[in-house]
């Protein structure tokens, strides 16, 4: 998938961080205006941002998760997310997109686990992972933060055809 960003691939980490800040663990005493995963839970409850009839890319556009300053990188990022329905996932019967959307719906549903969420990439050339979306619940993706997360990992590989 990384190839879809072309030479804007340098922004992939930053764009994932947009997600990671909005969906990260809420801070009790923050200077940030965003409220982390508690804010997302309220937005999901009120507006059903994540729905089975809406792709993850559409929800990401709605939440403005494409950055502010670089339209080309933003559009490429959303184009990359648009490919998720064509990918497989670590859950049988679910595309990469459905895997993410269903996991987020369940996480933020009333009575859900309400875990902060983290997005990262894995090397799709590695046979251990493959070119699929992997979602892990109760993961500790950031070793210096002692909190359980819902981790979404997108398959990436350098250059060549997207996968």
């Amino acid at each position, binding site marked *: 998938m990384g190839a879809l960003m072309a030479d804007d691939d340098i922004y992939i980490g930053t764009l994932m961080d947009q997600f990671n800040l909005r969906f990260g663990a809420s801070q*009790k*005493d*923050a*200077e*940030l*205006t*965003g*409220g982390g995963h*508690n*804010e*997302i*839970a*309220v*937005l999901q409850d*009120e*507006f059903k*941002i994540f729905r089975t009839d809406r792709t993850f890319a559409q929800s990401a556009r*709605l*939440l*403005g998760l494409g950055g*502010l300053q670089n339209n080309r990188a933003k559009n490429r990022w959303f184009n990359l997310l648009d490919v998720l329905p064509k990918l497989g996932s670590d859950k049988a019967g679910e595309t990469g997109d459905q895997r993410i959307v269903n996991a987020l719906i369940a996480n933020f549903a009333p009575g859900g686990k309400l875990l902060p969420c983290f997005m990262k990439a894995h090397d799709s050339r590695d046979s251990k992972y493959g070119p699929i979306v992997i979602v892990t619940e109760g993961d500790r993706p950031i070793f210096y933060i002692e909190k359980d997360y819902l981790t979404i990992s997108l398959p990436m590989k350098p250059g060549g055809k997207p996968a």
Partner: protein
Amino acid sequence: MTTAGAMEADPGDLAPVRAGIASYYSAKVAKFGATPLGVDWSCVPTQELRFVKLLKLCDFSSPFSCNDLGCGYGALIAYLDQRHADCAIDYVGIDLSEAMLRRARRLWRNRANVSFVLGHANPRVADYSVASGIFNVQLDQPLAIWERFVAETLDQLHRTSSRGFAVNFMKAPAGGKPDRKGLYSTQPDRWVRYCADRFGSAAEVLDNYGLREYTLIVRRQPNICDDIIWQ
């Protein structure tokens, strides 16, 4: 205006404060257009969550009139269309920024029962008034002057709302720590007390809705309404 210049100014003169706000938001809308970013919100859902809370003030079972102070490009109208299309609402949007109002008028040009007014005060008495995010961006104004601006704005919202008004504030960081420079945040007590003392109204505080802010709903007491409104 420099901070020092502002401090020397008559705290009663709010014209420089309003000019600063107009200039700030004109620059925002020039950069981001008629979008949530153009009025300093992160996205449509957070912008509309604020509308959800502010509009807890209103009774949608019958038609009413509403002033939207600091209306921006009129995003509230789109929200009302989406959620309350069955209720007839006579809407007036007021904003300090001429550039913002140009976009609002263009966006809603063929719309009945919608008008926009340039200025800092509601031009009429309506059933309700709402104001979203107008107290957050303090810029370089000293606290005393900014709070005077807040107080005067609340006064005029009260004067021009026959059934009540609703506003929101950023919540101050815990432990009395200062907020980011240029932003005004406060604990609810400060302005709840003001509304009680000044208007005889018990303000309802809506809090803990995921954003670092709270909403004040100030309903008029029916028995004192007429004395104040129609003077």
